[in-house]
């Protein structure tokens, strides 16, 4: 059972918002006493997802939540965009697959960096990616 303790939404529309979002995520991670390595992993994951959002969907919204499950605290990030959507999620989750000339490690790499990863996408409607990183996990 995952309980949400606090919620905060950040709009990401332009390049400057990316830095702002990362700072907010970092603040939250520091607040729940996440270790430095996990902090960096969470930040990198957030960075990957927000870059995807900027690049393919021209921005979107990120919800930052502090969640708790038993004695474990963590950060949940929900990235929602109204972009073109991903036609083939299985392919997008494969290492080295990219429709946009990048390394193709963003989504699969992000999955490896966080504890829980969920992606939902509908072509023409948008994509929602939810990740959870536990403070010590």
């Amino acid at each position, binding site marked *: 059972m995952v309980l949400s303790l606090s919620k905060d939404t950040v709009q990401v529309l332009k*390049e400057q918002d*990316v*830095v702002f979002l*990362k700072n907010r995520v970092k603040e939250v991670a520091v607040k729940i006493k996440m270790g*430095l*390595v996990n*902090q*960096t*992993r969470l*930040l*990198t994951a957030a*960075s*990957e997802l927000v*870059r995807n959002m900027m690049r393919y969907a021209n921005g979107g919204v990120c919800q930052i939540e502090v969640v708790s499950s038993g004695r474990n605290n963590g950060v949940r990030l929900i990235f929602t965009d109204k972009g073109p959507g991903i036609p083939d999620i299985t392919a997008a989750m494969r*290492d080295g697959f990219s429709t946009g000339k*990048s*390394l193709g*490690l*963003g989504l*699969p*790499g*992000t999955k*490896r*960096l966080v504890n829980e990863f969920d992606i939902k996408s509908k072509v023409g409607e948008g994509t929602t990616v939810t990740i959870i990183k536990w403070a010590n996990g």
Partner: protein
Amino acid sequence: MSLKTHQLLQKKKKNILELWMKNQLADEGLREDLISNDELRSQSEELVDALVSNLSSQNFTDLNSDEWSPVIEILGGIAITRARQGFSPRETGNFVFSLKEALLEVLQQEIVNDPQHLFSESLKINRLMDNLSVVTFETFIKGREEVILRQTDEIAEISTPVIRVWDGILALPIIGTLDSARTQIVMENLLQEIVETGSSIAILDISGVPAVDSLVAQHLIKTVSATRLMGAECIISGIRPEIAQTVVHLGIDLSNIITKATLASALSHSFKLMKLEVRKSTPIAKF
């Protein structure tokens, strides 16, 4: 038949200016430290001139009409100079609002027996002047935004210095997030400097980069490839433990690139590549 309002105001131009100046000088918020009274007067005169001479019965409420562009231009100019002189937006706004008061006062003196007419005309003037004060705010904000943009450019420029740490060895400390635009600047500066100094080794130090995601890694790989094409070797230093772990998890392959944990070890590696040796000097024996 009484005069139309705009004709009335044109006739009373002198009065309006005098009244406005009186109001401004009497105001507590007068900033004699920022602007001299003469200058204030000439500014005010210019604005009243432009405002009154461009008034016509049709354009009273339509600020988009072309006839207003000289007024908006003058007002914009005033707002920008005032912003530079250190006026607060409120003070610049008050500058326009006090003109409105002067206009209304003149109107009140002239239209005596017809409250309804006075009200409707006041309303028009109100609307017009409110619009103009919004213009000052817009210009003020635009001026500020320009300052911010200029600073952004300056930061981008100074934040990517190329340092000559040794004859033939360049170091490039990167601080902050690497995005496409910055990578472009970094690459340009680095390649240019390699040509100019004839260096054979470049060290990219990423100690100041908070997180390395796949895009940053891709940019780094591109920079290294470009440096190699120029015939120089590129070493990436400043890889912190948490960054190393993240890069591994992401699955980024940096094995083709020479990477070091610290700038010092990158430097000593370059010495080795250049077959240089750093030794403690032995004291010269005295006889």
